[in-house]
């Protein structure tokens, strides 16, 4: 019989704190991915199934750039820019023709794109996972663990990227255009805002963000052609839980879900810990379907 006191005595407090840090780190990467997803959905009503593949291709590009130049930061910039361009091209070729049609068609098209991109990666890079070395080593002591600095840095970088994007949205002409287009697409056009190009640019930005998260995340896991699938799924869960189109909500939800999963990993295996995010989703759908972190609509 385990008494309550025993429970607290045996409570793995240090493990909990380590997992908190891990959860925040993963959460920030997930937040970056989810930001791109929710941005694209909020502004264009497009559910971007291919988002995970853009993440994956960003990671692969990072691998290539590092293999040739050895410079991680260059990889980050190049991957983001190239994938942003790819995103813009995809949007112009496949999504623009669909404007005015049933928005569900965009799900189908982006799903098709994700299949093509995934298999393209498999074809070009093969099934064996690649790895990027951490851009700098160095650990600090977190309890009994040697915790790599790098992990904190990527969390910080993700936050920086999201933060600068938020600033960009708030100030600056383009930010106004994006916000106006989100609120009232028709009147935005009537005000001379070139809405089709705003859409392309938003898709490009979202793609770039996905690619950046791919490069940031690559040193932590192996890069392979199917890494996108899991993340896009988690991304969707986070976006629904955070409130579709709600940037702040997605970020909060991303960290929330990641923390819960990290804690769950203490007791169950990681592949089972994923169930936590599913449960959160189900609960959200049952009780607050507009999003957990959204103020109740009046």
């Amino acid at each position: 019989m385990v008494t309550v006191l025993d429970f607290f005595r045996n409570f793995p407090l240090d493990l909990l704190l380590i997992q908190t840090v891990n959860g925040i780190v993963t959460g920030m990467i997930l937040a970056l991915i989810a930001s791109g997803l929710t941005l694209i959905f909020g502004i264009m009503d497009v559910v971007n199934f291919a988002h995970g593949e853009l993440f994956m291709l960003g990671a692969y590009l990072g691998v290539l750039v590092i293999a040739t130049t050895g410079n991680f930061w260059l990889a980050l910039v190049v991957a983001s820019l190239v994938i942003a361009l790819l995103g813009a091209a995809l949007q112009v070729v496949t999504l623009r023709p669909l404007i005015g049609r049933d928005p569900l068609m965009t799900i189908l098209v982006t799903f098709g794109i994700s299949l093509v991109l995934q298999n393209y990666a498999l074809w070009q890079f093969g099934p064996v996972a690649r790895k990027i070395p951490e851009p700098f080593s160095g650990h600090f002591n977190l309890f009994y663990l040697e915790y790599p600095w790098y992990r904190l840095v990527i969390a910080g970088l993700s936050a920086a990227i999201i933060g600068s994007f938020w600033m960009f949205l708030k100030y600056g002409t383009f930010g106004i255009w994006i916000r106006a287009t989100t609120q009232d697409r028709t009147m935005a056009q009537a005000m001379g805002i070139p809405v089709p190009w705003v859409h392309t640019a938003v898709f490009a930005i979202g793609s770039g963000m996905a690619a950046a998260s791919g490069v940031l995340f690559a040193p932590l896991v192996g890069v392979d052609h199917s890494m996108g699938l899991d993340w896009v799924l988690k991304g969707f869960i986070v976006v629904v839980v955070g409130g579709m189109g709600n940037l702040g909500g997605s970020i909060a939800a991303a960290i929330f879900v990641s923390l819960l999963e990290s804690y769950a990993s203490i007791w169950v295996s990681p592949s089972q810990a994923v169930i936590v995010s599913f449960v959160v989703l189900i609960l959200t759908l049952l009780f607050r379907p507009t999003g957990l972190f959204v103020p109740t609509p009046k």
Partner: protein
Amino acid sequence: MTKIRDHHSIIFWTGFAVIVALLGVAPLVLPEFWRRFLTESLIWGLLAMASDGLTGYTGMISFGHSAFFGLGMYGAAAALILFSPPNLWLAIAFGLVASAAVALFVAYFSIRLRDIYFAITTLIFSQIFYVLIFTWTEVTGGENGLTFTRPRLSLFGLFPVRFTTTTMHWFVLAVVVLSYLLLRRVMHSPFGMVLQSIRENEARTRAIGYAVQRYKMVSVMLSGLFAGLAGVLYAVQKEFAAPDFVYFVVSGETVIYNVMGGIGTLVGPIVGAAFFLMLRETFSRFFTEHYLIPVGIIFIAMVIFTPQGLLGFARRWLNR
């Protein structure tokens, strides 16, 4: 008007009979590989047709069909493993119950959501089941799945006869034809008309006084049942069950069959499935396992340029 309808009926049913006859005769003349190919096309066609009931007629795009299909498969597997000698009808029963249960569960949560949210939620649910099956290794065999022996075809336990490729094909053909007739009947009934009305304008249908949520629920379950049936057939044909089939990509491919074949036609998705599998076969010769690159591009092009699919132009005609 009746004259035209009779005229249409004659053409339709004659055509139908001809096609069924051709499909029936096919295994007698085709080489072994194509025999199996045809059977498999029919099974995936059944899955696509089931999905069409939900997507094409009720207007709810679902990415959850892999869960229904997969649970039908595992349900059948359970029956075939647990009971000896393996009984075909028990397998079907188990499979249908399993998929119906899953459909009920998924429907309960996702029904109140509209459009895109429904699609995403069904997708996530199929992933939930994937993870559950994948990790619950003791029961489901986890990653490796389950293998079992094919049951014999028998009526009330009498005269058990082993399936050959040909008889398997006929059995599947019979099930698919019956399913089609049943689904067709349902979609043309008053119930089906309400579903189509929901697709056209949900708010108005509700305003008229229909309990839209209930209709949607039944639609999901119906769709889930036939998808589960397809899963049972697949299990019986292939003699194994694996979590790969519960992965949402299978749902995605189902939607591809629907779009390629023509949603809202019931037969269209079957054609779409066959078309996709044909494309896969053809491209596999040149691209080996990367066939999805050209096929994916074709799919994207079809969504953009021919969203009505191969049979979509005949949609009105097929639904008279």
